[in-house]
């Protein structure tokens, strides 16, 4: 036997003492033996082997015989879990929330359909290793602000450049739906009618935009025979062609019932494929969402209800309500100041949902395969299946339990460094107190 049998190599990650170096491309096939495979797509497979090669999962069976060039890891009793996927983040686009110089997620102006997240994704951001150390290996990086914020990109949380890190671009176009709220307070200056007109106008502006895209597309495709004149370039309209003509996903950020209703009506009218993000009130409109086949990304489970009169644990229960009604959904952590750094708490959102009625398997699915389906990357990631990317992690503890101990992680077969800035500081100051004779550190 000249295949390299590596037993318990799992603390390797912690021995790095400098900045995290991106993993090397998978050169040799790797066989993980005897793990508990949380496939997500089917049931949990206990004591199975998983073989991956050139970044792809090639076999999942019991007792796979390894070829000589295969690295074999004994992972008996350890849990193999597909990457958690964060569907809405600003990863790579912001380093420090309050420092303007480090913010790249919101371009100036109302309509920015043409801006792309991945081109300004900073692969050396400190958020990346911190996020992935809890098993979130894939995140959708999303522009914000304005009416149309831009195009998001699904990123793998490892790589030398943004190009290497991009898993899918564009993953979608992001629209912030206008507020449908009418203010009646005594100090409100605008009349109800004025307010309604303003709301209608912002929706009409979106309609106009869609019509212009269709016209623009027609004009560039069908050159006029009558003249040499051609359509002059318009980056904004051009960038929307895939979403309007090819019906790629448009993510509509909307929480309130009237917003959701209005966004769905708009999508139907304009024949577009939308996904609702935020969706606090989605449980009030499940029929509408199901009828129109609209998936929902629940922006944060661990939050307080929008309204005082709502059940105090409504946000915790929202995923189980949607599940029971049959709405397609996945879960997210909250984004924006001061929360952009805690994408790593994504599993907590799923566990909280599970504590309030969502089946544990379904909870796991809502941060893996369901997310992949909604982002349109389920042919590559989201579950442990043959042919999919070898993007998963090995854990001492099963998924959906607090205090995970993650031993090793792979992104497309590349072993990922699980160390990070925080662990390094921890070690550094442990040394301080060790020198002072405090050995319990």
């Amino acid at each position, binding site marked *: 036997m000249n295949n390299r049998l590596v037993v318990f190599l799992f603390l390797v990650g912690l021995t790095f003492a400098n900045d995290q170096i991106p993993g090397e491309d998978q050169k040799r096939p790797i066989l993980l033996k005897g793990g508990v495979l949380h496939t997500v797509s089917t049931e949990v497979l206990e004591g199975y082997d998983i073989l991956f090669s050139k970044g792809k999962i090639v076999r999942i069976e019991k007792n796979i015989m390894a070829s000589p060039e295969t690295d074999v890891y004994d992972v008996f009793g350890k849990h193999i879990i597909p990457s958690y996927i964060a569907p809405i983040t600003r990863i790579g686009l912001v380093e420090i929330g*309050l420092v303007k110089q480090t913010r790249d997620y919101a371009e100036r102006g109302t309509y920015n359909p043409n801006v792309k997240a991945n081109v300004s994704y900073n692969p050396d951001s400190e958020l990346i290793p911190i996020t992935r150390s809890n098993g979130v290996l894939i995140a959708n990086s999303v522009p914000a602000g304005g009416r149309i914020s831009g195009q998001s990109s699904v990123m793998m949380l490892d790589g030398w450049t943004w190009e290497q890190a991009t898993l899918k671009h564009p993953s979608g176009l992001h629209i912030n739906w206008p507020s449908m709220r009418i203010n009646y307070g005594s100090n409100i200056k605008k009349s109800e009618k004025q307010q309604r007109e303003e709301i209608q106008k912002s929706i009409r502006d979106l309609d106009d935009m869609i019509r212009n895209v269709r016209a623009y597309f027609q004009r560039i495709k069908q050159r006029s025979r009558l003249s040499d004149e051609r359509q002059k370039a318009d980056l904004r309209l051009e960038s929307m062609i895939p979403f309007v003509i090819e019906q790629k996903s448009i993510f509509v950020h909307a929480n309130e019932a009237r917003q959701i209703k209005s966004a769905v009506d708009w999508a139907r009218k304009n024949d577009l494929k939308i996904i609702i993000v935020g969706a606090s009130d989605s449980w009030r409109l499940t029929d509408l969402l199901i009828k129109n086949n609209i998936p929902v990304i629940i922006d944060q489970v661990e939050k307080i209800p929008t309204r005082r009169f709502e059940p105090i644990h409504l946000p915790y229960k929202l995923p189980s309500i949607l599940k029971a009604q049959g709405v397609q959904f996945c879960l997210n952590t909250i984004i924006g100041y001061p929360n952009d750094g805690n994408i790593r708490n994504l599993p907590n959102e799923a566990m909280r949902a599970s504590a309030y009625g969502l089946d544990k398997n379904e909870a796991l699915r809502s941060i893996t395969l369901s997310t992949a389906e909604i982002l349109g990357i389920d042919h590559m990631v989201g579950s442990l299946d043959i042919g999919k990317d070898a993007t998963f992690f090995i854990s001492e503890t099963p998924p959906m339990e*607090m205090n995970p101990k993650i031993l090793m992680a792979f992104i497309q077969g590349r072993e990922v460094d699980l160390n990070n800035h*925080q662990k390094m500081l921890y070690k550094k100051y442990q040394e301080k107190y060790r020198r002072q004779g405090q050995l319990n550190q």
Partner: protein
Amino acid sequence: MLKNILYIIFPFLLVAQTEPNENLQKNSPRVWTLTNGMIHTAPGDFIKGGSIVIRDGKIEAVGRYIKSPKDAYEINLEGAHVYAGFIESWLETKSYNDKSKTKRRHWDLKVRPDYRSVDNFDLKEKDLKALRSLGFTSAQLAPTQGIFRGQTGIVSLSDGPRAINSSIAQVIDFKYRTKGARTYPRSLLGVIAHIRQTFYDSDWYLKAQEIVQAYPTENEPISSNSSLESLGLSRALNKPFIFVSSNENSNSRAMNITKEFDLTPWILGSGYEYRNLDSFADINPFFIIPINFPSKPNVAKYMSDLQYSTKELKHWDIAPDNLLYLFNANHNFSITSHGLKKKSDFRKNLQKIIDRGLNKDIVLAALTTIPAEALGLEKSNGKIARGYNANLVIVDGEYFDPKSKVVSVWVEGKEIYISSKKTPSFLGEWSLKYDGTAYELKIVDLLKDQTNNIENKIYSGSIYYQGKTIDLYNIDIFESSISFSINGALIGHKGSITFNGELKDDQIIGTTKNTNIDKSSFQADRKTKDNSKEIKPESRSSLSVYKPEGAYGLIKKHPKPNAILINDATLWTCGPKGTLAEWDILFVDGKIEQVAPDITVPQGSAVVIEGAGKHITPGLIDCHSHSAASSINEGTQYITSEVRMRDVIDPNDINIYRQLGGGLTTANVLHGSANPIGGQNVVIKLRWGSNANELIFKNAPEGIKFALGENVKQANWSGTNRYPQTRMGVEQVIRDAFRAALDYKHANDNYSRNSKNQRTKTPPRKDLELDALVEILEGKRLVHCHSYRQDEILMLTRVAEDFGFKIATFQHVLEGYKVADRIAEHGAGASTFSDWWQYKYEVIDAIPYNGSMMTKSNVLVSYNSDDDELARRLNTEAAKAIQYGELSPNEALKLVTINPAKQLKIDKYVGSLEPKKDADFVIWDGEPLSIYSKVEETWIDGIRYFSQTDNKMLEERDYQLRKDLIQKILSTKGNGSSTSNINNSSLKNHEGHSCDIIDNTGVYDE
């Protein structure tokens, strides 16, 4: 001395005309007798068909058998009702805005107790008319600007209104600027502190002036200040202080100030008084209540009802009962038309109040005798009696019948015309009896649909008889008489018949003239109107008022059992005993009595809870909260140690209830972090359903918020240039403050030690800001310091040690792990986040191992929320210390129980399950550190404030209530009550960190 000043300052305006006359003399007679009226001499008393003699603006006589004096001209008021002129108890006209900063004014232009509203007022003709058309003949004129707005006075609403008293009461408003220059105060916190300091200043000023005058050789003269002088005098004379209320919270805040300074309190009501009547119980203020009821909530459109809180929907239904609530609680009130957008709604709304059960005489009193008494006018106004001012309201029917019209008012003996008497209407259908036959008579107005001019009418009419329509001609209507003719042939008579009749009480009686026959009589009775158009009189709201009002509010207080026994549960004592499986715990009279393996009590003597499978922990404690507060930051000055969170507690905050649902029982409600030395914190217990004052954890020592770093040097927002701008400056600011405090203490000590000084020297001025700092120096006030970086943490421990005090807790303290040894040596606690980082530059080195690392370095560590939502899952926050740094579960739970209790020096009372401590505990359905465990019950002081069963019940109750209310609103015709709009703030985003939104200072607390 006081008396002398009084004469100068309060010259009652007895002399009316002193100005020269520059035209021919105008001397209309001023002697009148009004006869035959229905005279309402006082609420509940009336004289039918009596007379009033008016002479020179006064009532000379009133009664049934009065002989009109020979020189008096008689006016017949047959059919009219006469009331004493109403007193508008709150009338605002724009105050003269004095920008000139004379040397004698208070340094803050918003403090103007010396301002008198009657010195400079401008009542518009239109407004004057509107008030008189409601029957008001005099008014209390109120100043409109500032915190101490100034003094009210009385004006008569005659043409060319004049002041008749210039100083009735002082007005205090809790308003603060949120826009424009960042001047103090810019928050409710600051306003209340400012009010308190100003009261102390006026006390001091009067005393100091007295001493300077008595011992001029011993003292430097102090500068004269008219604002403080006025305020001091108002107090010395026991003048009322009117608090302008904007909601139920401002009422209880006003009561706190009233108690502290022993004021005579009046309240200009907000309409929400019914929500916390108990806050007035032992004070009994006088109320001036507007009746601007909310307009009908707009719930008809798709999902638009979601915008309204349950509280707002309920208010729509209950608001007109506000006076009834006050009346039933034996409070004294007057009614004002203040706040009504359309003054014409005043009488409609009075009608509602009466329909809903408030006695008419009470309403009348609230417009006449009660305000007269309160304003000191009871000997001249409010009644129709000999010697009273001839202020009268003449109505063509009963005033409280909204259909009747105010014909005129008499102001000081002069009649001012309002509108013509009601002309009886002949329009409509009548059943006519003439010559033994019944006919149908119909009279219409041809101009009715074409013009709004009700004075001009063109009448047309017809008679129906045996299927025929016979037109009338020569119709002539004048006041209550009518005449018309018909062609008699059409009804079987000869020639034309002319009818002449008088209308009285829906009946026309008269005679006919026929060319052939002589006079005969006829009678026509008005057909009763179709009742469906009539608006049904409103009845009192059937809803009960919750405490606090709105969703999840309580109808009555929770019961408090004498004893509670929990059997066979897992007790996470957080004390020396650690975690005990299958133990018993007994609570008696709100305290923990016994913790033992097996406790038995006599049957029926305790509430017994079967604890098998359940886990009991102490109530969780949040050492850094901004919940239950209406105001967070007073960020204008770098030291605001005078402001107090206890002044701005908001017992209505639903997060109190939600956090109870997460097992939280105690919270340290802190001021924000806008300034190096911020405001005083308050520790509360989450006794949902209590008043603000009852939430306070009485045994908790006082404390204060400090802050360091980016926030206090204002690094993260633009447009500010306040000192300090660097961490170097921050250190100096704190040192400077404590040096000032030492000097202040020295001066005070000197003064109080020397009894001769106390007699002959001006006392040191009481300074609330420095008082708080002295308390820190004396170890009586705990310092909780917002901090991040190791340098500043180290710095503050050194500064504190230089001044001889200790920091109680560093808050956030995300680099605490770097100097854990120093923190431990100093003896401070550290209250931190489980895993926050990244949001600002100074947290770049924040690590989730911070808490466990400091714990292992012997620092007393707690985990806090600083967030409304995080505060309801502190148990799982604590659990993160197991993942990051491997604390044991017991150690982890202590981060949110006994450790914060120790940090707040309340561990004698709470924080662990040990005998003699408060019965604050949580029943969990599983291990408390597991994300899958839920709170079943939360108890405070032996009272169950949360349980899943109750929660479900409240949820269902409120769901049904909303449904019913929305249904009621939809089935209510018209606009319901118009006039003012309620603030619909139910969608106010509560997701953010509370410090982000409040006060617009832009100061974050993270």
